């Protein structure tokens, strides 16, 4: 046996040596490239040596956004910056936070990432992000160029830790054919909803009036805020009196009433027909969702008519959630200069315009006021809703707070606890996190 193994061992060694040799050769080659390249490079080039920067994002791998990024925008950037290569990595939204943490702890964070605005305080608080206001010499220019609301989501503990990349909020999407069949129109107020639901069910017994896929803050906050409630005080010091205040309790009791009457689809409890599919298949009459609903529904159900209206108003008005993404630069990045070039590029008019074509609401003030946006079939209404939309609590422990809210919502809908009881407990748990 041993005798047979010796040659294998020998081959392994030869391979190892070969690998080393190849490595050495590759290094030599790139050094040669470098010198020849630097002759061609224009003096304006920020980066003298060829570098590769990594950019992680959650544009769905098979989506118009990712196609635009990969086939149009990155090639454009690379043509303008021959020394910078951009390696883009799409990551599923649910796995993204985890992936960022593991890579940060391993010291292999990307140079840039497009992250949910709500993760910015957490990553900044960890010390993972570079403060853009200190790193970027021309940061001040962006203060006026960008929409103030989305820009503010990058602010944490006295510094800006990123720049906004896109913004959004949600609207009331409704299936006009179903609404017409029941003789109802888009609800202007939450008070109309129970009656509307009954009319709809009378006309279409198998249809759900409304569908949403869970009880996390992104879903329940429009209801809480529109009912006049909130999660914490403005200074984010306590949840007691807010999350378990009368208005928030009323909002959850209202959702429970809708759910008990069969007006909200069971998918709110975790599984069932997914919201977009249900909308496309005439099972769900209304959704509360963002501008990406258009490309998603259009790609699966090309003939579907999509109608939108503002989120129904409650005692507190018609208030939805501000969503969107920030682009952040990581402290561990070794190519900060090159990365910031790309950062400037994603905030350029060209990038923002191109991305607006595929469903991303731009953050540049000059674009928001442009004719393209004003005359756009749906951006106008989103921008209108954004005027009253509010941001989720900026706090490093937001994800845990969100989970507490999700669980409270589940307990209420499952009829295991009264809204008051569940929210009292949730408020106490969040207070514990805020200490």
């Amino acid at each position, binding site marked *: 046996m041993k005798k047979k193994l010796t040659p294998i061992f020998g081959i392994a060694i030869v391979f190892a040596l070969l690998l080393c040799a190849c490595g050495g050769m590759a290094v030599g080659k790139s050094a040669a490239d470098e010198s020849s390249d630097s002759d061609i490079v224009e003096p304006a080039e920020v980066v003298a040596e060829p570098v590769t920067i990594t950019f992680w994002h959650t544009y769905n791998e098979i989506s118009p956004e990712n196609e635009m990024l990969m086939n149009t925008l990155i090639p454009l950037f690379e043509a303008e910056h021959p020394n910078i290569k951009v390696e883009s990595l799409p990551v599923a939204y649910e796995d993204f936070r985890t992936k960022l943490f593991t890579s940060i702890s391993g010291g292999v964070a990307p140079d840039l990432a497009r992250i949910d605005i709500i993760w910015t305080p957490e990553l900044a608080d960890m*010390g*993972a992000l570079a403060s853009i206001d200190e790193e970027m010499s021309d940061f001040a220019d962006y203060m006026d160029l960008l929409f103030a609301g989305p820009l503010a989501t990058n602010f944490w503990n006295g510094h800006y830790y990123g720049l906004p990349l896109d913004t959004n909020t949600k609207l009331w999407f409704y299936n006009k054919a179903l609404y017409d069949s029941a003789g109802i129109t888009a609800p202007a107020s939450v008070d109309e909803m129970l009656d509307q639901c009954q009319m709809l069910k009378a006309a279409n017994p198998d249809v759900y009036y409304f569908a949403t896929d869970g009880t996390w803050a992104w879903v329940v906050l429009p209801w809480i805020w529109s009912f006049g409630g909130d999660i914490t005080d403005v200074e984010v010091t306590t949840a007691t009196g807010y999350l378990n205040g009368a208005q928030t309790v009323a909002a959850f009791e209202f959702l429970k009433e809708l759910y008990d009457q069969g007006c909200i689809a069971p998918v709110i409890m*975790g*599984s069932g027909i997914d919201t977009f599919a249900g909308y496309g298949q005439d099972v769900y009459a209304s959704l509360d969702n963002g501008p990406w609903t258009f490309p998603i529904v259009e790609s699966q159900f090309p003939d579907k008519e999509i109608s939108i209206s503002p989120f129904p108003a409650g005692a507190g008005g018609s208030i939805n959630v501000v969503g969107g993404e920030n682009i952040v630069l990581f402290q561990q990045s070794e190519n900060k200069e090159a990365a910031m070039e790309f950062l400037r590029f994603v905030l350029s008019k060209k990038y923002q315009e191109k991305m607006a074509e595929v469903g991303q609401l731009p953050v540049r003030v000059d674009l928001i006021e442009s004719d393209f946006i004003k005359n756009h079939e749906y951006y106008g209404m989103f921008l209108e809703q954004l005027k009253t939309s509010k941001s989720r609590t900026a706090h490093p422990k937001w994800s845990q707070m969100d989970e507490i809210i999700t669980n409270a919502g589940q307990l209420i809908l499952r009829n295991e606890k009264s809204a008051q009881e569940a929210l009292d407990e949730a408020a106490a748990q969040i207070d514990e996190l805020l200490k």
Partner: protein
Amino acid sequence: MIDAMKSKILKNLTPYLFILPGFAFLLFWIVFPMIKAFQISLFEWNVMPNSSSIFLGIQNYVRAAKDSLFWLAVKNSFFYALATVIGQLFLGLLVAIILDRIAHGKIFFRTLYYLPVVTSWVVCSLLFKFIFNSSPAGLVNYVLVKSLHLLPKPVTWLNEPGTAFIALYALGIWKGIGWTMVIFLAAIQAIPEDLHQAALVDGANEWQYARKITIPLLIPTIVLTSIMLTIGAFQTYIPIALITRGNPIHRTEVILSYMYEQAFSNRDFGYGSALSYILILIVFTISQIQMKFKKEENQLY
């Protein structure tokens, strides 16, 4: 003389050199992370490289003892192990005994039963998620409501812990039958054919032979298999992560999914590591208890 000594040393050294690569991998990928995880479990661990962490001593372990969600996850893991191990052993044994006796198509059926074993957990989990979809169009709902009329209305399988675990158990058992079958089939084939002939001469039928001869002779294999399966069952993670994600309200969480949630979602790596050490302790204890059942008298024939 020196040459002789040299060659002797080399000769003694050779086997160690051969196990060195494997051993180095073991040290690097298993032993080092284990020690590191133990170290982390004593801290409120900061994931940022080159940052300081707060030493907590055994506080993370004390916290686990008081954490009702963790104990629910332990209970879920325990019942998952109980259901899937018994299910796999029983059905695997049944299939093995039958396959051993059928005359035609043995290889065909063996391959068929083994297919789920070599299929990826991810694929199978997503498949079961579709099969147990809560909508009326979900396969199980469709069959139970529309085809067989056993239920008046569709079940929201994955929204309730009780029914969600039915789906998870079914997946765990279905996926493992092939593996236990192959092990048992090998063990059955090691039983001398004379015993079968002798039993038949004595007037035993196949069922009596299986019950009185085959199964008793398989006891050591059954014990060993059950240990392997139990360890595997306590380490289940993918189906939970993909099918229920621990929902609703952490009620379908198992130890590993809860540990992952603590470490990676809540960034509480210290607590997560402490939970993983508690898991090791639980698995070790259960394996020891199972080993007690293993009789020493292996050589009956």
